[in-house]
């Protein structure tokens, strides 16, 4: 590790260790969804020193995004989110290799090509239909996934490692996306959920804590985090 690298991460190395920092620098993460959750999680992962990031989203920036999606500003309106996000994150950390893919996650998406086999996938999606498709892929390929979702003042975060029997259907086996109206949110509230998702990823990648199978349900209205230790629902190899 060079002096500059060590200095850059000098406030977190006491917490995650030099070995943990090296693991972050050597890791590749795919962030799926660059909205309220994904824009913050990808930023925090780059700031923490994740070596390679792939950013995926099919949307363009809209006015209604600007109350919470910190990677974008008024000049970004109408532009593809992955393009703006990639540019901004490269400015934050020039040592993080960032690439992107402008696509939505559907049954027709070639996930082998789009996602490949990273060390970790971040689920920052905005609907359960895409989430189920993504979760099926990561489950089949034994790729750990950090899932988060937010709805109003509530959210949830969980690390799902198929190698330990946890996949997306362990938390919601039959949930499909039915909502047709925008979900209300306050940017600062989404930020809490996103921070917890990013922290879960950093802990896992650096090797300091593996929270696989523990579902955190965050209730910002009552200022409460409930920790639920789930049972695995898949057989491991």
């Amino acid at each position, binding site marked *: 590790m060079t002096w500059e690298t060590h200095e850059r991460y000098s406030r977190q190395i006491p917490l995650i260790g030099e070995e943990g920092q090296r693991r972050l620098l050597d890791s590749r993460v795919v962030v799926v*969804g660059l909205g309220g*959750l994904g824009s913050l999680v990808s930023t925090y992962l780059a700031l923490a020193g994740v070596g390679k990031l792939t950013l995926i989203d099919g949307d363009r920036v809209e006015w209604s995004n600007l109350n919470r999606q910190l990677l974008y500003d008024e000049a970004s309106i109408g532009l593809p989110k992955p393009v703006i996000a990639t540019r901004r994150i490269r400015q934050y950390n020039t040592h993080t290799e960032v690439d992107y893919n402008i696509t939505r996650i559907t049954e027709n998406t070639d996930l082998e090509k789009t996602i490949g086999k990273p060390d970790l996938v971040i689920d920052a999606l905005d609907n359960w239909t895409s989430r189920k498709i993504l979760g099926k892929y990561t489950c089949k390929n034994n790729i750990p996934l950090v899932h*988060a979702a937010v709805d109003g003042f509530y*959210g949830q975060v969980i690390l799902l490692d198929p190698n330990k029997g946890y996949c997306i259907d362990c938390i919601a*086996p039959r949930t499909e996306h039915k909502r047709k109206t925008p979900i209300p949110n306050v940017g600062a509230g989404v930020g809490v959920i996103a921070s917890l998702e990013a922290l879960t990823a950093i802990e896992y990648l650096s090797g300091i804590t593996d929270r696989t199978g523990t579902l955190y349900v965050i209730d910002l209205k009552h200022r409460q985090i409930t920790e639920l*230790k789930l*049972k695995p629902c898949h057989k491991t190899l």
Partner: protein
Amino acid sequence: MPGIRVRYLATLYDAVGRFEEEIDCSDPCTVREALNILTSMHPVLKEHLGENYEFIGEDVQVLVNGRNIEFLNNLSTRLKDGDVIVLIPPAAGGLLS
């Protein structure tokens, strides 16, 4: 008579007005019977769970001791003294594109 602890998360906490409570359920007790007790105590729960609990699984998730009842015996899952039921409403993620 099994004592069952029930936790209501997120919007269900708002609906019921409490985070946690304990109920007594006649032995043999199933999840359905526990829910019958809960909906009689808190009729508003039926709006979230469905009149016949048809929203469970797709919308509201029901866990018994950390396991989704979909992987157990659904509403017929037997409960024993000290079991913990958690009711979790869905969190979607953001704006539907």
